[in-house]
């Protein structure tokens, strides 16, 4: 067996959001040995990872969007959490505020909520779950659908699930029970059955487990005889976390070494090259070395690049006050690019993540050829 230095990689990706995970997956697929260094679940805990179609600037290389989204779709499919939709599509997905969010791709368990034809939807609330109200969502969605000229009808239904007296109910608790307790799954199925009668679609707050895969949810839909749409709720958003865990498992399976829990405090440079990162581990900082580094650490991580950050060049490389790249092999992706203003969104996260993964793998020439 070949023995590798456990601290040395071809690529280090800092941050495990959509951008960082896409970058790690893309580079691994192209043969790099990748480390993913992260802490926390980023925006996954606040949403579901939906992708909105937003205008991109020329510097974003919109011509690569299709390829990036294609890669991402395959990545999520293999992770057991497939996305549905396409860049060109535009659908309305309901939210817990009873508003519609316009998206082009979404995880399968949310995509079902897209209303394109006349469907009868039952919005299901749970007795005692104060962070979701089926009547409220139904009333709002009905108004909104009328405003948008959609012919979907919504009715509300509240179900009761057994729970310990005096214990506040939360979607996290339901999700934990869903994962651990087969009996709870049966109870939930029985409770949902009346709501599924006369409905094409059940809309419910996201609670169907943190580790549930496509088959399990499809099975549930089959047993109910109607589609299911799980809305992301106030944090923690179960559908978002489920996506995180699915992608995380996939990355580990394909050989990405995941270091989670210890923030990156510094980047290490040797001349014009970024040679590694330093993590804040107990007792001694840990030094990880790499051939290149991708920063996908979110909007507030610009400090890692120092005071002189002025922007990014055409290859996603941060530039200093004089407009020179800080390092030739250092790329930035996702929300960090938006630190200077504007909101990038998930579409940009995937596009830039994919591009940076490719750049790190030395495949930027392919772009130039186009």
């Amino acid at each position, binding site marked *: 067996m070949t023995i590798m230095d456990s601290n040395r990689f071809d690529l280090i990706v800092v941050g495990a959001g959509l951008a960082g995970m896409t970058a790690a997956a893309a580079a691994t697929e192209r043969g790099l040995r990748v480390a993913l260094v992260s802490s926390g*679940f980023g925006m996954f805990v606040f949403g579901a990872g939906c992708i909105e179609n937003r205008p991109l600037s020329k510097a974003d290389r919109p011509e690569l969007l299709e390829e990036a989204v294609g890669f991402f779709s395959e990545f999520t499919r293999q992770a057991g959490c497939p996305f549905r939709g396409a860049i060109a599509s535009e659908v309305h997905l309901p939210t817990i505020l009873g508003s519609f969010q316009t998206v082009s791709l979404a995880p399968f368990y949310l995509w079902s909520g897209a209303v394109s034809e006349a469907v009868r939807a039952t919005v299901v609330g749970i007795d005692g779950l104060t962070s979701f109200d089926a009547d409220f969502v139904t009333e709002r969605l009905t108004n909104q659908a009328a405003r948008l000229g959609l012919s979907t009808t919504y009715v509300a239904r509240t179900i009761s699930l057994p729970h310990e007296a005096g214990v506040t109910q939360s979607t996290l608790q339901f999700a934990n029970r869903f994962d*651990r307790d087969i009996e709870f799954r049966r109870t939930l199925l029985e409770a949902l059955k009346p709501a599924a009668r006369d409905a094409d679609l059940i809309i419910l707050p996201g609670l169907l487990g943190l580790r549930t895969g496509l088959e399990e949810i499809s099975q549930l839909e089959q047993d109910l005889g109607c589609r299911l749409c799980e809305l992301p709720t106030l944090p923690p958003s179960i559908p978002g976390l489920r996506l995180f865990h699915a992608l995380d498992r996939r990355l580990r399976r394909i050989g990405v070494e995941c270091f989670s829990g210890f923030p990156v405090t510094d980047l290490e440079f040797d001349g014009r090259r970024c040679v590694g990162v330093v993590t804040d581990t107990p007792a001694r900082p840990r030094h990880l070395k790499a051939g290149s580094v991708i920063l996908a650490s979110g909007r507030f991580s610009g400090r890692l690049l120092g005071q002189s950050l002025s922007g990014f060049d055409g290859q996603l490389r941060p530039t200093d006050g004089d407009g020179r790249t800080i390092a030739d092999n250092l790329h930035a992706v996702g929300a960090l690019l938006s630190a200077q203003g504007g909101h990038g969104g998930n579409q940009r996260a995937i596009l830039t993540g994919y591009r940076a993964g490719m750049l790190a793998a030395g495949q930027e020439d392919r772009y130039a050829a186009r």
Partner: protein
Amino acid sequence: MRQDDVSLDNCLKCSDCNTVCPMLAAHPGYPGPKHLGPELERLRREGLPCDSEWLEYCLGCHRCDLACPNQVNVSELIAAAKARHRKPFIRQVRDFWFARPGLLGKILSVAPAVTNAVLAAGAARFGMSRIMRITSERSFPPYAKPDLPSPQASLRASERLLFFPGCAIRYNQPELAKTVVALLQRNGFAPEISTAGCCGVPALANGDGQEARRRARSNVEAMDQAVENGATIVTACPSCGHMLKSGLAELLEDDPELEKRAKRIARHTYDLAELLMAQSDAGKLNTKFRKTDLQLAYHAPCHQLSQGIGRPWYHLLRQIPGVQIEDLDAGCCGMSGTFGFKEEKYPVSMAVGQRLFERIHEAAPKMVASECATCRMQIEHGAKVQAIHPAEVLLQAYER
């Protein structure tokens, strides 16, 4: 905890910590780390009387700290509050002993045969369960004479390697100390056995801050001189390692001089696998392994994860030809040292471990490797599979 600690201010209420808390997943009434940590700390600092019963349920696994994207010292806030919490008398007496495995070990290992016979006797178990609130569901680990090896030490101070055995190895599994020493010798080290006592994790876990600080102080005094002269400390128990690396200095922060020395000890402390992995990275690991056909599953203890050293055992064992190893990655085992022995906590301790037990059954390994003594106890008890320290696998793989 330092009075000017403002890490609770970093909390954005994202609930990442709650989603990884093993106790919250198993116990629906548990308020979770976000609430017991930063949320209530804010009210504790206001001076309000706050509910503290739930603090006893914190497993001290530090998974909340790892999940926090904003570096809130969640479990430290909980541990500090736990140390101020008052318990009913019986639990106080029981936890007094649970907090002092070193003292307990000294007494019980005087005549191990007698101790083990008594600990296994039905009447004694019944009494402990009824009076001391110690569960009769589990068997106690047998005690042994603490006759640790006394290997020839290195002559040069800067090359000294002190093995910190910890209570579980010293009093319950002294043969493991021989394994560790032999393994280190095979790799060119000349280890000695440190005389330092209990690391203090059990004291902290049982809410005995004073005892934890006493342990910390005495251990710093025991090891400081050697470390100052360049010695390295090595641990084979992840909880001891965790304590020496991050706990000592925290416990001693009221005394800047001791704190400084504790930090120096931390900088020179290595987990056994971490040390061997560093050898491996430098191409200096003895890899004269014979082919060993063994299907293993590896369970990473919480206090191994909290050290931030990656998965060294997993990578080391994979280097043995013929060994198949699967990283179970199934969360906390639920034992948490003495926690799982407590009568009132036993059911929830087993509920926490449920996911791990299921994963072990799926993986169906010949045995489970895990470096934490109480994790192994829980795995053998809950999954009915033999559990061993990975050091044993490695040592046995060496050609004789």
